[in-house]
């Protein structure tokens, strides 16, 4: 956005403001560093479009961990962070969620072929199957937790763990667990894609999506003005369907088609 910086009427020529956009560098295909070390991924590419649309801002992308991203945005070290973040009421205490969401994320259950008929969490709970541990700092944990609170009579056994040590695909296929909460985007790239590292398991596994969820950038509490600018820009980008194209590119599907079914 260095080009064509406009000056507001009445004020002195406004300087281009540099802002830091933190992203979870281990979040392929949402946000990650490519072979050459450049930031890319669905959410990054959308943010790049936003940057272009906002001449008075210049974005700098800071690769970091999701822990640091959360602390850093809250503290103001980063003005905004993207990490496939979902909305919860409580989170609005610490961050500004803008009006416009950033992307969509499909969530489902990864299962062995023989459990194909399990379509959602309540089926899963009824069948008394075991679920792979979910990282404590992951919103998937919250989804299951919320389900459990809403359905106290039919709970899924939920265990916290770490994304780091849990290879859900392997665990499910191995039989260590019966199923795992999984992201559609990852499943597409990892198992369905011909060059995916677990393409050899494509016939043994199924992925049943039970929800599509909006993902949001998290703004620092003092950045209302920036958030508003973002809203303004993203609205147009979405209208131009540029987001759909990026989603196909990075996730292999266009979840925007399912937007009517999205509840949160």
């Amino acid at each position: 956005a260095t080009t064509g910086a406009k000056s507001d009427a009445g004020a002195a020529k406004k300087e281009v403001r540099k802002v830091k956009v933190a992203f979870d560098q281990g979040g392929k295909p949402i946000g990650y560093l490519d072979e050459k070390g450049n930031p890319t991924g669905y959410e990054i590419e959308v943010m790049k479009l936003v940057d272009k649309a906002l001449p008075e801002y210049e974005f700098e992308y800071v690769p970091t961990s999701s822990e640091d991203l959360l602390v850093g945005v809250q503290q103001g070290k980063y003005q905004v962070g993207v990490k496939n973040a979902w909305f919860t009421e409580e989170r609005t205490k610490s961050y500004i969620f803008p009006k416009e969401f950033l992307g969509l994320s499909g969530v489902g259950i990864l299962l062995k072929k023989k459990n194909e008929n399990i379509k959602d969490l309540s089926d899963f709970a009824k069948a008394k199957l075991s679920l792979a541990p979910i990282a404590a700092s992951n919103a998937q944990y919250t989804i299951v937790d919320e389900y459990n609170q809403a359905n106290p009579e039919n709970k899924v056994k939920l265990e916290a763990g770490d994304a780091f040590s849990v290879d859900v695909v392997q665990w499910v296929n191995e039989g260590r667990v019966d199923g795992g909460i999984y992201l559609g985007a990852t499943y597409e790239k990892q198992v369905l894609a011909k060059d995916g590292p677990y393409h050899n398991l494509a016939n043994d596994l199924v992925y049943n999506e039970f929800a599509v969820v909006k993902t949001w950038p998290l703004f620092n509490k003092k950045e209302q003005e920036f958030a508003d600018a973002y809203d303004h820009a993203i609205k147009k980008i979405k209208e131009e369907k540029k987001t759909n194209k990026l989603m196909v590119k990075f996730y292999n599907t266009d979840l925007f088609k399912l937007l009517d079914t999205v509840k949160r």
Partner: protein
Amino acid sequence: MQTYFDSAYIWGALPQLLSFLHVTFMVAGLSVLFGTILGFILAVMKLGTSKASIKIANGYTTILRCTPSIVLLFLVYYGLPAIASNFGTDLNHLDTSIYVVITFSLQFGAIMSEVMRTAYEAIDRGQYEAAVSVGLSPAQAFRRIVLPQASVVALPNFGNSLLELMKEGSLAYTIGLVDIMGKASLIISNNYNSHSLEIYLALSLIYWVLSILIEQFFSKLEKIFSKGKLVIKTT
């Protein structure tokens, strides 16, 4: 096992990991350097006669030793710029590696101060006395006579702490600094979390070789310093 294991990933990962080795070296090297200096100062304070210095040094050691690394890292990473901004300096653009080095140095110093204190105290006081009696200054007596003997005692523990520090890459990764450990995580996530076993095996291989080299170096040093020493042998 074959279903999940593909040794090609190991060989593929090795060169990628190795190209980040210099980051590991840089961070560990600087932290060891500064941490050792800090540890030395603290050890001197602990061994001195001033009650206040002893209290300060002990307190520092307790707090730094007991603080989880990740918390300390955040304290430095967020606290330092906050303090600096009170003095009108903006540190937010400082390289992340600097924060990592500061964090490790602070922690390494606390641990080294205990290593050095015990090593010093283990040396018979007669050695120091004899040295000053032949006209060495206390500093010379320390450097020439006590230090080499204390080093023998300190080296194994120093080695422990040094290797520990080298492996703290996951911590650096938390604030976005990528060393070989961090690179391993990146490779894994770029594979969508699959084949991590192979990547970690490659990582272990590199670490293992490093640790062997470092140990060889230390045992050479130990040999040099332990000239003339009789060790306990059971019969």
